[in-house]
């Protein structure tokens, strides 16, 4: 029973990791790709770790530390990457309607002036 539950959770995690890969292939520009990859792979990783935790309860503490590390680093690195992409003016998909970061930058610029 425990093994079955763990396997199902791992399988669900693998599905999210697969959808992250699919998102990388199918999304139109850098920013949507990064967000597809990050969100889905963070959730997928954590589900895989949770499934392993159900499978081997004695690993739980180590897996929790790994999950904490993934939660801290994965969004952060994607954030830094997409900000750098934005800073060098990487083109966005034509359907993009809002650019909140540029507005924020402009507002900060005006405040300084």
């Amino acid at each position: 029973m425990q093994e079955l539950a763990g396997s199902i959770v791992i399988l669900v995690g693998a599905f999210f990791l697969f959808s992250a890969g699919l998102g990388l292939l199918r999304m139109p520009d850098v920013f949507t790709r990064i967000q597809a990859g990050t969100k889905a792979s963070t959730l997928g990783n954590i589900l895989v770790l949770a499934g392993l935790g159900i499978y081997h309860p004695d690993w739980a503490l180590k897996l929790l530390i790994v999950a904490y590390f993934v939660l801290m680093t994965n969004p952060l690195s994607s954030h830094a990457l997409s900000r750098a992409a934005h800073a060098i003016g990487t083109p966005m998909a034509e359907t993009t309607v809002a650019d909140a970061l540029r507005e924020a930058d402009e507002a900060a610029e005006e405040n300084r002036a």
Partner: protein
Amino acid sequence: MTKRVFSLFAVLVFAVIFAGIVGGYSERRTLSPLAQHYLASVPQDLGAANIVTGILITYRGFDTLGEVAVLFMVAAGVGILLDGSPAPERQAREDRAPSELVENGARVILPIIFLFGAYVIMNGHLSAGGGFQGGAVVASGVMLLMLARPGAQLHHGFLSVTESLAGVVYVALGILGLWLADGFLDSHILPKGEFGTLVSAGAIPVISALLGIKVGAELSVVIDRFRR
């Protein structure tokens, strides 16, 4: 259209190749005599729980010294190529401040990264890891530090002195092995200790720590050179 056909063709070719590999794979039931020899003699002779580190640092210690020398030359080469005044257009462009998230995130993660690096270095003889891997982990932490604080300056003089000292002590330990034990870089110059504890396996943890310091300092300098 042709591009699609070509991609499909490439995928098919890979599928055939991998299917052949998977189909022809049969799991090895027994260890080869060489593997058996090392599996038996590393824990017994060297007292190291991690077979790979035992082989890497003692049995082929001279090779490892060569690898360290290669890394040293890489660092020196990068230093020669990139050590100059910053390119003019870089100088003119104002460096963007790091975002708040990166700055605060680095504060939380950096201690964990450095702790993990030290752990990997110190436990090289017990579990997966060792000087090279731990040094790379530490250097990745230094890289995060640079991203989070672009103004931070690495003290190159201190790092190169540390790194050279580690290298000198490493070679000195090797020569000590010639004198006190069976040959260059023999780890029997220190007592074997109790199997599986932190202080055990002769000189392996010491050499691992030296390697970690050396690799960490070298890679940090290399990363810092690319920043400018």
